[in-house]
């Protein structure tokens, strides 16, 4: 197991733990906004860590670029989705 | 195709062409005037063509027509009655509603009823028999009254039932033959050796008995025949029931004796002869009485055929046909007579009633009439046993019934205003009446084998007269018919059956309920799963 592999392992495990924490937050937190907060924060970071960890494993430069693209796209969609959900939650609240 | 063959084919095709002509609006108006012409080729064929003339239609029309003596006798009588009734109808129905429909059904029924007398192959027979049965519905239900509708419904149900019996019988009959559509003759020759013999004969008798109106399958007849307009009643009662007679003649193996089946047919025939007369006496309408008389007379024909079948007597068909000819002309004449009599009054009434009475008593066997000849001709074949006596007693019943008929018709026409039937109606009636008196004399020697003179002999006269006298005595003695009249509704046991109808109607309702339940989504889904499991289990077990 080389240095690169060790780096991958550490990053991936850390990413997985963040995912787990995010999921726990989703299940346990009381209201929509805080759930969303836990989920998006943990997921963005978790995915980032995993992608980071996988980078040394890529044989070609192209593969690395693809991985980073994936992370960026996930960031984009996660941000939008969070915005949308938060918007709906905010609109509902005053009426409730 | 020879000229003779063409004429035979024309007997079938001309009426069909006439029916087709009704599709053209321009031609429609002329059809009623041509109705009398439709049976003329058949009449000519019966008159001129020698027995044994046959013609096969070209492929793909698989049909063979053949004329034999039996067929010719019935064909001649039937064609004559059709022609006369056609002429009568043209006058009788002029200006009444539904004439066009009548002009379609009339030639179709005509083609079917004449065709069955000359067709020689099984499929062709079934085709023409069906044509006659189904088209006759149009005549029965023509008047669209509730009674006519009910009669039409009952007629249709039983006719289709009869078709089903016959189809099954024919299919089994043809199953053993090399040709898928054998000649009737060949198939019947092989019948006694068939493993399905009893089933076939039973189905044949059931199917044809329905058409002839043998008790207890007669229920449609007293409803249907009176419901039709007068000329249609004449041919329904005079000709159409003969489709059953010719069926029995053609399909039962008279060369080989079938004692059990012959005995059964004979017994049913005798019972029908008595039953028809007994039930008829309790009726009040002239046409219904005549219908019951037809039932009774067909019973006699069945008795003749039954005796022939039991003894293996090949002469039975000819004699039955001779009796049938007599009945065709007389019964047809009587129905026309009812129409004429109802239209006549005053001075015109008496001669009509006279001829009517003569015809009526001819049915009972009045000496010197066709009835007498017919009864004399069949006597030798019936022997001198129980059957012979029974037939003679049936003649007593006929006498009684006919006297009742004469009394009723006289009563019904008593108050008619002084008028006369139009000559276009009277003339056909007179022709039929005359033919009924003349033609049997002409045929008697060939069929009975006796000289004409024998029919004059004292012994013969006595044979005829004693049952008639008995009939007269019963009629006079039991003057209490007035009390009985109307006791039995038209269609007797059918009425009892109809009372059970609500109970029967519950089943379709139950089926409907089941259907609506099965058509629920969840039920259908479950059934589908069940089918998968059923088939899967079956396949695994079979593997």
């Amino acid at each position, binding site marked *: 197991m080389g240095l690169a592999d060790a780096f991958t392992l550490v990053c991936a495990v850390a990413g997985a733990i963040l995912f787990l924490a995010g999921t726990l937050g989703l299940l346990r937190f009381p209201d929509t906004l805080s759930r969303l907060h836990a989920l998006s924060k943990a997921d963005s970071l978790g995915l980032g860590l995993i992608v980071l960890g996988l980078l040394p494993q890529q044989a070609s430069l192209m593969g690395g670029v693809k991985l980073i693209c994936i992370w960026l796209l996930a960031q984009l969609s996660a941000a939008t989705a969070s915005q949308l959900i938060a918007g709906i939650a905010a609109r509902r609240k005053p009426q409730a | 195709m020879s000229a003779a063959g063409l004429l035979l084919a024309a007997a079938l095709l001309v009426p069909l062409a006439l029916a087709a002509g009704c599709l053209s609006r321009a031609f429609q108006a002329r059809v009623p005037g041509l109705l009398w012409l439709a049976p003329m080729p058949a009449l000519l064929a019966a008159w001129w063509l020698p027995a044994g003339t046959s013609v096969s239609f070209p492929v793909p029309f698989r049909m063979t027509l053949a004329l034999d003596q039996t067929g010719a006798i019935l064909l001649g009588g039937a064609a004559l009655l059709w022609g006369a009734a056609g002429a009568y109808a043209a006058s009788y129905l002029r200006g009444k509603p539904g004439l066009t429909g009548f002009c379609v059904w009339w030639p179709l029924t005509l083609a079917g009823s004449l065709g069955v007398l000359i067709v020689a192959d099984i499929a062709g027979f079934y085709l023409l028999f069906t044509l006659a049965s189904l088209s006759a519905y149009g005549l029965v239900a023509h008047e669209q009254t509730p009674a006519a509708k009910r009669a039409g419904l009952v007629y249709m149900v039983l006719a289709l039932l009869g078709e089903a019996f016959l189809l099954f019988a024919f299919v089994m009959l043809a199953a053993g033959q090399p040709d898928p559509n054998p000649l009737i003759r060949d198939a019947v020759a092989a019948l006694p050796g068939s493993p399905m013999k009893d089933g076939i004969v039973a189905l044949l008798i059931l199917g044809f008995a329905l058409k002839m109106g043998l008790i207890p399958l007669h229920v449609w007849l007293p409803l249907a025949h009176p419901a039709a307009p007068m000329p249609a009643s004449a041919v329904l009662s005079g000709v159409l029931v003969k489709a059953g007679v010719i069926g029995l003649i053609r399909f039962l193996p008279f060369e080989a004796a079938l004692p059990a089946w012959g005995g059964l047919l004979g017994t049913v025939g005798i019972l029908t002869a008595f039953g028809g007369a007994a039930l008829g006496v309790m009726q009040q309408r002239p046409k219904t009485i005549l219908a019951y008389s037809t039932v009774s007379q067909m019973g006699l024909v069945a008795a003749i055929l039954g005796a022939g079948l039991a003894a293996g007597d090949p002469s039975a068909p000819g004699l039955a046909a001779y009796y049938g000819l007599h009945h065709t002309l007389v019964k047809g004449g009587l129905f026309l007579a009812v129409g004429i009599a109802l239209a006549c009054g005053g001075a015109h009434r008496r001669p009509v009633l006279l001829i009517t009475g003569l015809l009526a008593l001819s049915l009972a066997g009045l000496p010197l009439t066709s009835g007498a000849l017919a009864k004399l001709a069949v006597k030798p074949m019936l022997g001198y046993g129980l059957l012979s006596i029974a037939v003679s007693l049936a003649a007593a019943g006929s006498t009684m019934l006919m006297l009742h008929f004469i009394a009723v018709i006289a009563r019904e026409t008593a108050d008619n205003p002084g008028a006369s039937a139009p000559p276009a109606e009277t003339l056909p009636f007179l022709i039929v009446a005359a033919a009924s008196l003349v033609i049997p004399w002409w045929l008697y020697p060939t069929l009975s084998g006796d000289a004409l003179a024998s029919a004059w002999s004292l012994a013969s006269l006595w044979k005829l007269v004693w049952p008639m006298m008995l009939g007269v005595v019963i009629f006079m003695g039991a003057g209490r018919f007035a009390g009985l009249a109307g006791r039995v509704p038209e269609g007797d046991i059918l009425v009892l059956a109809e009372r059970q109808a609500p109970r029967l109607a519950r089943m379709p309702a139950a089926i409907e309920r089941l259907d609506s339940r099965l058509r629920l*989504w*969840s039920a259908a*889904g479950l059934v589908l799963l069940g089918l998968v499991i059923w088939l899967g289990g079956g396949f695994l077990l079979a593997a």
Partner: protein
Amino acid sequence: MSAMALTSASLFGLCGAALVGIGLFCIVSHPDLLRRIIGFNILGAGIFLVFGAVARRGAAMELGGDPVPQAMVITGIVVAFAATALAIALLRRLASLTGSATFEAPAAPPRSEP
């Protein structure tokens, strides 16, 4: 590797069998039409997994699976989507027209004519 492929194929095959059962149950017995349509998709997924198991078992020639059933599954997924789309379009139209999302109407009443 091949033994592993077999085990995993069987596992997903069994999963497919289970999904078929679940999907069928949903289709047959769920009262809600939309849910039945989802049931169809679950049933389809189960069937496709059976195909997938068959494909995986046929792994050979350095291929992860037999390409023929895989291609069939792709075709099947697209057809299933089209079916879902048509069913949903019908359901939406039905709801707009009649105000209810069920087809268990009693026998169709006679047409009302002007």
